[in-house]
């Protein structure tokens, strides 16, 4: 296909998202408008975004245009290049299944007090905002689209505003989103001093080292807040569970990636030459985020909160890989930097698909079993078999076991880290293996997180009445999940093809392309150094499993005898005797005790253990108290007397005159 189609297709995606927002307004009078118009248009937007992304990646060219809008002297620049293409692909790949899933999910809200029109309109604007961020090629349009994305998602988070925790989550989210927006604006401000607000001008001009470092810190904090880097992550586990599940899927799978895109665009594309100092910062921040995210995820009882903490962990590993890329690039090993960057992009893609699947699965559970608490679930695999098996695929993928897609990115990151022997600086040579060690620990913790989520939630026996009467969800919701499972299988089994697609984005940023010849063997460093063939792994697993089944099948063909479970010779065990979700994670709570803000005690009639996040008590509560005290001081100025205000005005005027003179 012709490369010049990329930009028109991306424009179609934006138009379809805006159209979806507009058509949802009809839902105030005609609730079916969401099913008939809004969600199909979101699907169209998803397909168009995917196609545009694929074309941009395959052609490897940048295509720019000016829009007849914007400020005087600063028209809106729009561009699509392989980097934007990679993220358009992720966005589209998640948006399409969400559009399939949405109609069944929002049906539950139809008879409620919540406005479907608001939900649909904000969803469309949210998607349009994310597309705009990916397509913008000047700081003005970028910030405009960024704020559209933030504000629309704020309204989506507080959609169920009759619940106090939703309102609180939305407030925290809005606060941090605004702070993040301000920081990003300042980062662009630093970059724009030497050139202009358009990206090509920023790319051409490089600020000096001090200003570049300031811009890096601002960008890291701004985009890092949105991406959920510790300690700026606190909004994420509040906001993601509060939103409706298909929105949670979009926020966790795509919006965090849009933040990642912004960071990549500013630091790897616009900022200028790489510095190893940036790399060290990224590795340390990424490793801390990943470890803390995993440690907190393992203690969550709310399934969606657990998934949100797991997103924090995954973004941490992505930033760790980015740090490796920056270190290798600064040390003059562009091929190794390309490998690390490929690992980061692969992890982003894989996480987008897996986390979308898991959030849609959690939404299906909420729909079918009316709970999000693991302590009430159990045995859902038999009551919701299709959702259950697909959720298992997601859990296996997140635990990074072969032959699923999460493993490929982990493998690539490890391979990049193992190239540390090429580095000359001894600090870096120690830091990179330490990062690999923390990543290994994170991966093992992620396995605990998802064994626990699936084992407690979907296996065993129902722990509550509503879960005992759970029902499978409708076809549309299943189709959305099935689409994601198919995409995950494609990414997992043909990593070489995916890597060669993402490779053109890597080529754009590092100047090298990490190549694996053929399609079966993933050999980014040459066939003798390391190789992995997921298709063969799957074939052997299936072959051996089937062979064992055929050989061991009983001759008579009698059905398996069913008996009660073993109860030491006493009465058979009851559901209450099963391990609880908090009980399962008790060893981790004991080993990592200093990390958690532990609270135990009786809440009503039930004994409750909560392992909270210490960043609230260490950072945010003191910060809030400081703000209150500062506000108290400022209040003394406002006594309510006109005389005093006039005096203040006069003093200010005198001061200004003194400065000017």
């Amino acid at each position, binding site marked *: 296909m012709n490369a010049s189609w990329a930009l028109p297709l991306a424009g179609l995606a934006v138009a379809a998202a805006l159209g979806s927002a507009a058509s949802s307004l009809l839902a105030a009078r005609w609730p079916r408008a969401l099913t008939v118009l809004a969600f199909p248009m979101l699907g169209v937007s998803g397909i168009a975004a995917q196609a545009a992304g694929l074309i941009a990646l395959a052609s490897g060219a940048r295509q720019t245009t000016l829009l007849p809008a914007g400020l005087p002297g600063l028209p809106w620049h729009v561009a699509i290049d392989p980097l934007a293409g990679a993220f358009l692909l992720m966005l589209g790949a998640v948006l399409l299944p969400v559009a399939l899933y949405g109609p069944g999910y929002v049906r539950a809200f139809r008879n409620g007090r919540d406005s479907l029109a608001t939900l649909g309109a904000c969803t469309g604007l949210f998607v349009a905002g994310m597309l705009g961020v990916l397509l913008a090629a000047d700081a003005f349009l970028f910030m405009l689209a960024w704020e559209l994305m933030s504000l629309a998602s704020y309204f989506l988070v507080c959609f169920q505003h009759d619940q106090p925790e939703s309102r609180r989550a939305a407030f925290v989210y809005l606060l941090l989103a605004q702070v993040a927006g301000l920081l990003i604006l300042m980062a662009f401000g630093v970059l724009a001093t030497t050139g202009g607000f358009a990206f090509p001008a920023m790319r051409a001009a490089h600020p000096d080292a001090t200003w570049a470092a300031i811009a890096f810190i601002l960008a890291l904090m701004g985009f890092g807040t949105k991406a959920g880097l510790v300690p700026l992550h606190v909004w994420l586990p509040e906001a993601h569970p509060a939103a409706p599940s298909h929105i949670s899927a979009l926020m966790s799978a795509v919006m965090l990636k849009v933040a990642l895109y912004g960071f990549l665009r500013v630091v790897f594309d616009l900022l200028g030459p790489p510095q190893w100092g940036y790399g060290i910062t990224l590795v340390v921040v990424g490793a801390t985020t990943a470890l803390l995210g995993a440690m907190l995820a393992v203690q969550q009882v709310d399934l969606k909160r657990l998934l949100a903490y797991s997103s924090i962990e995954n973004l941490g590993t992505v930033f760790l890989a980015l740090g490796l890329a920056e270190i290798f690039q600064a040390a003059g090993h562009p091929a190794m930097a390309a490998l690390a960057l490929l690992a980061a992009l692969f992890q982003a893609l894989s996480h987008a698909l897996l986390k979308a699947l898991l959030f849609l699965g959690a939404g299906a559970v909420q729909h079918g079993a009316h709970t999000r608490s693991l302590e009430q679930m159990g045995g859902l695999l038999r009551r919701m078999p299709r959702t259950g098996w697909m959720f298992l695929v997601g859990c296996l993928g997140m635990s*990074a*076991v072969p032959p699923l897609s999460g493993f490929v990115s982990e493998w690539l990151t490890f391979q990049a880290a193992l190239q*540390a022997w090429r580095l000359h600086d001894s600090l870096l040579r120690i830091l990179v*293996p330490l990062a690999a060690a923390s990543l290994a620990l994170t991966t093992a913790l992620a396995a605990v997180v998802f064994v626990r989520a699936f084992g407690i939630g979907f296996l065993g026996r129902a722990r509550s009445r509503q879960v005992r009467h759970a029902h499978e969800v409708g076809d549309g919701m299943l189709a959305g999940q099935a689409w994601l499972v198919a995409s995950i299988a494609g990414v997992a089994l043909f990593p070489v093809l995916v890597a060669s697609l993402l490779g053109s984005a890597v080529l754009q940023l590092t100047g090298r392309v990490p190549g694996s010849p053929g399609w079966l063997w993933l050999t980014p460093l040459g066939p003798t*150094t390391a190789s992995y063939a997921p298709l063969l792994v799957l074939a052997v697993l299936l072959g051996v499993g089937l062979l064992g089944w055929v050989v061991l099948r009983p001759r008579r063909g009698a059905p*398996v005898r069913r008996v009660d*479970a*073993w*109860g030491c010779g006493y009465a058979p065990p009851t559901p209450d005797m099963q391990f609880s979700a908090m009980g*399962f994670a008790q060893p981790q709570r004991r080993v990592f005790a200093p990390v958690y803000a532990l609270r135990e005690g009786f809440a009503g009639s039930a004994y409750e253990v909560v392992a909270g996040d210490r960043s609230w008590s260490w950072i945010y509560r003191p910060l809030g108290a400081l703000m209150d005290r500062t506000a108290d001081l400022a209040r003394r100025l406002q006594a309510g007397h006109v005389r005093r205000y006039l005096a203040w005005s006069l003093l200010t005027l005198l001061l200004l005159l003194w400065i000017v003179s």
Partner: protein
Amino acid sequence: MDRLLSLLLALLQPLALLAAAPLFTAVVGRFKARLQNRRGVPLKTPYRELRKWAAKEAVVARTASPLFRAAPYIVFASTLLAAAALPVWETASPGAHVADAIVLIGLLGLARFMLVLAGLDVGTPFGGMGASREMLVANFAEPALLLVVFTLAMTTHTTNIGAMAAATLHGAPVLRPSYMFALAALLMVAVAECGRIPVDNPSTHLELTMIHEGMVLEYSGRHLALMEWAAQLKLLLFAVLTVDLFLPWGLATRMSPTAWLLALPLLLVKLAGLALVLAVSETVLAKMRLFRVPGYLTLAFLLALLGLLSHVILESAP
């Protein structure tokens, strides 16, 4: 001819491991019995048990889901595939290309994932207890194992286990401090991963102390046979992994059946030595309290990390 031989090798090595796994467990048991002044069971007992279980009817709990019946096959297949990635008597093992050392650890992770889920599936307290404890062990044992592999990969510049062994064979025989730390960590991890004393007791049936037995408590018949065979294979896998990574001397490096025949006796001696080490340590040590286990595992993790750092600091000149 070479292609045919390598295909033969790819099939023969894992099958040989599979066939020898019950024997290895029996040999460890025999050594242990002799050390404790007992006569011990005949070496063919594990084979007889497997045959007995395979022939018996499988009984499944009423509360079990389909996953419970699928899990033994997945656990068995992924453990066997992990074993197929190991060079047993020949370093140029084709299986090591399909799955390198990191994939091998990932496959063991897949087996563990399914085993733990099977433990949780029936919904009994024992299964949950075993599952929770197994994940505690895995939480530290898996990263420690990865770090051991990383230490060797940084030295040999490859993660292909066959190429690692070959690099050690061809390199100068120097005593590397990093290898000492890594070997100690690997042995500690192997004991924990395979559920041996002092972390778990393979012969216990006291419900409150068991880890592996707790998870497979509900299994019977052919399912139990597969689970137990996979556990035996895992023990032999760790023994062969130790040989490949740290004692590769004597492995064949040429693709020829005569070289293989020469490599086998030395391999048997090395495996018997490792079995003896395990038997002695199981005889002199007592099982730990469960909450001592994290300390033990953290020590293994730190040893592996020390190995990695001592490689970076002491051995590789920038």
